[in-house]
């Protein structure tokens, strides 16, 4: 129980830091990547919370697909931004 609390505290703290950085980062792409990292940490949290189904889904959908959608959006506008 103690170990659980310690680890979950670390994970939770890391998540908060990542979230704060994602919100405050200057570059959009960094923000998106930090979100992806946050999502990965969430997967860890889900596993710790004994939710394997959710963890798998979050891993595939949350951190994989959502991130790629964000990236594609940024990519598709990148060259126009250069103009």
């Amino acid at each position, binding site marked *: 129980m103690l170990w*659980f609390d310690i680890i979950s505290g670390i994970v*939770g703290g890391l998540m908060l830091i990542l*979230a704060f950085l994602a919100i405050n980062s200057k570059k959009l792409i960094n923000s998106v990547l930090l979100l992806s990292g946050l999502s990965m940490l969430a997967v860890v949290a889900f596993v710790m919370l004994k939710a394997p189904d959710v963890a798998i889904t979050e891993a595939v959908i949350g951190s994989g697909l959502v991130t790629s959608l964000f990236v594609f959006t940024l990519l598709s506008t990148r060259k126009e931004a250069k103009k």
Partner: protein
Amino acid sequence: MIQYAAILLFVLGLYGIFISTNTIKMLVSLNILEIGLNIFIISIGFNYQGIAPILSSVSDTGLIYVDPLPQALVLTAIVIGVGTTALGLAFAKSIYQKYQSFDLNDMEESL
């Protein structure tokens, strides 16, 4: 601990939406908010002694499981979140095509 972190993630998401004027940032914040919410939902079903709600055989008795219902709800919520995010990104992209920017402050006639 993780439950508090979840709630704080939720309000951090709100904070992110509050301070950002950028559509992508808003959607990132929205995702943070949803992750926080999802963890919170799972956390209300958690038990220190519990195991994941998958039976190895019917005869298993006396085991404590974590609440499976919140997990099912989160499964749904994640997919719904993806739907919203995808649509939001699509709108962000069409805003970009119209105004050449993601920043809502750049758009004079944004009303």
